[in-house]
């Protein structure tokens, strides 16, 4: 209770009409995180599909006949390296070194491309020996899950290249810093999804 009495000549104000200053993009990081959570649901659905259909071979090849774990280990290493090199790009950004950011982003992109190249090689090999998505429910769900992850990496690389162009044009302005942090979340999130893929699809598949 306010002890102040309301007088007739003073306008009564019960709420704050003034707009508070919100810097541009102040909610971008949280919004992007919530987008990633929705992306997480997409992957969860695809994982559930694979969990349900992964044992239906239709008398076709099983994971044991198809997966080459050495190749998958190499692929995992590529993605893990790209994660730490992105980390180095963020550290360079905190020190305000635009050239360093560009360099580490480029290295991250190369590791991403290596990952994609190995994945495409694997898919090409599978399709060539007749293990196409049409062959069995297991292969349909496998290609959908791993392919969706691969598409995410592809678009991550497109974003990365776009960001490098913007960095070279405008430097480390606030908007670009925000973009670097958003792509950082996206990139590390894809690595988190890949942990699920290599454990649940490849390693558990070979065990089955």
């Amino acid at each position, binding site marked *: 209770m306010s002890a102040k009495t309301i007088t007739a000549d003073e306008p009564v104000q019960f709420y704050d009409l003034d707009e508070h200053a919100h810097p541009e993009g102040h909610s971008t990081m949280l919004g992007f995180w919530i987008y990633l959570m929705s992306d997480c649901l997409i992957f969860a659905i695809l994982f559930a599909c694979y969990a349900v259909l992964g044992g239906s071979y239709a008398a076709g090849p099983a994971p044991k006949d198809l997966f080459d774990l050495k190749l998958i280990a190499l692929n995992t290493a590529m993605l893990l390296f790209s994660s730490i090199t992105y980390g180095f790009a963020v550290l360079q950004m905190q020190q305000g070194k635009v050239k360093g950011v560009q360099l580490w982003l480029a290295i991250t992109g190369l590791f991403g491309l290596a990952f994609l190249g190995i994945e495409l090689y694997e898919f090409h090999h599978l399709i060539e020996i007749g293990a196409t998505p049409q062959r069995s429910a297991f292969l349909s769900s496998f290609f959908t899950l791993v392919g969706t992850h691969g598409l995410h990496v592809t678009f991550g690389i497109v974003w990365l290249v776009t960001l490098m162009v913007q960095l070279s044009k405008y430097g480390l302005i606030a908007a670009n810093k925000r973009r670097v942090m958003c792509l950082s979340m996206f990139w590390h999130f894809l690595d988190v999804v890949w942990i*699920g893929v290599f454990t649940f699809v490849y390693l558990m598949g070979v065990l089955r």
Partner: protein
Amino acid sequence: MSADPHAVHEIEMPHASMRDYVVGFVLSVILTAIPFWLVMAMPLSAGATGAIIMGFAVVQIVVHMVFFLHMTPKAEGGWSLTSLIFTVIVVAIMLAGSLWVMHHLNTNMMPMPHEPTSQTTSQIP
């Protein structure tokens, strides 16, 4: 939030450090190498290996969240963690529910002629 609502504040960004990334990377390498070795060399039974690699995956996901995604209970005033917990609950319900329902449907299916081995083995108690 600062006391003065009119103050122009900088956008909050998680502060990353070299230590975080290196620790996260080393832990990730260990947590990736062990499951791959367990499956490729097979020193244990398939069941035990499966349980262990699933455990390693969960730990590695937490490591990535903490060291690479800078997840803390205080990030974005707690909203990041809240949305993460919500998502994890939804995902857990959906994964467990799908597997449960589909497992029941599978066991109620008529025996299929081209898969005689799995049917006969499941009949024997």
